[in-house]
């Protein structure tokens, strides 16, 4: 069923990639090949660091959108997982937001998905403690919370 849900998102005009990642940063389900898996995992880790840093300052990050000229990346955070999508038109972002909200609700009731999620459970804050960091990240993370 997660695959069918992903296909629904992929069917939105100009959506080139959709991936569901656990808070461990592992890709659970994916549709589209425009970004290699190792790069998706790396993006997921950067997003989870942002999410965890916000959580430390008392904010619950629900979603993020990144705007380049002809590329748009969205991240929808949910309980224990996040959905990353990439599209090439800003006109579909509004529809994408609504679809992702429905997707999160559907996934939260999907048994195979929940079983996978349980296996990959992790606190996002681990991404602030473990991993490869540059000097700026080390400095900023040390001053958080």
């Amino acid at each position, binding site marked *: 069923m997660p695959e069918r849900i992903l296909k629904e998102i992929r069917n939105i005009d100009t959506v080139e990639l959709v991936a569901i990642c656990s808070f461990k940063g592992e890709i659970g389900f994916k549709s589209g090949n425009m970004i290699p898996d190792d*790069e998706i995992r790396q993006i997921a880790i950067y997003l989870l660091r942002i999410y965890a840093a*916000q959580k430390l300052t008392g904010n*619950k*990050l*629900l979603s993020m959108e990144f*705007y380049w000229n002809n590329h748009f990346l969205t991240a929808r955070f949910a309980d224990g997982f996040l959905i990353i999508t990439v599209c090439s038109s800003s006109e579909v972002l509004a529809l994408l937001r609504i679809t992702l909200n429905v997707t999160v609700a559907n996934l939260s009731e999907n048994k195979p998905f929940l079983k996978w999620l349980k296996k990959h459970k992790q606190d996002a804050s681990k991404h602030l403690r473990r991993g490869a960091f540059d000097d700026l990240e080390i400095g*900023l993370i040390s001053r958080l919370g």
Partner: protein
Amino acid sequence: MALVGNLKDIKLANLVQLNCMEHNTAKLTIEHNGKYGFIYFEKGQVVHAEYDPFIGEDAFYRLLQLFAGNFKVESGIRAPAKTISTNWNNLLLEGLHRLDDEGQGSGSGYTRLFERLYTIKGVKRIFIIDNEGRILAKSTAEINDMHIALALASHESQKIGETIRLKAPQFVSMNMGNAHLILVRQNENTLVLDVEKKTRLDLILPLIKKALSG
């Protein structure tokens, strides 16, 4: 009848000047993000100011930092206390000096940028942070402790761009349920706009772009 408006349309310094030159006795109330500030005039002199937790000149200078907020001027209301004795001219001059000095790396450049951004409907607060999370300029006194986490968000956004062989994103939107932030990378610094929750990004982003191009 009370005079009401928003500081987006008239600067607080101009409002103070107007009341002083008219020799007014009045109470000026400013509401910004649910917080209230007060300035009292007596016969054209500023005699008292409050902006929690500040009182007197400190409160007055903090209020001058506001670029937005609803205001109301009620004539004939006298101050509950006298905490300011400095002549209004000197008070205003000192306040404007502080505004220029306080965290504004490039003088009044940010002030003009903030003014342009504040004309955009939905913009509530603006601040600029450097890549280490230091606040370079801010439109309001209180921005909580979010600046470090936002500097990290800006840095990680740049790295996300690099991962897929793109530059730093032009805009990053962060929806936090109770707040909606827009991050705009400007060289090594990040401009952060706190916008109203229901703001439509497709409408506001072109306006921000236009304001930035100046």
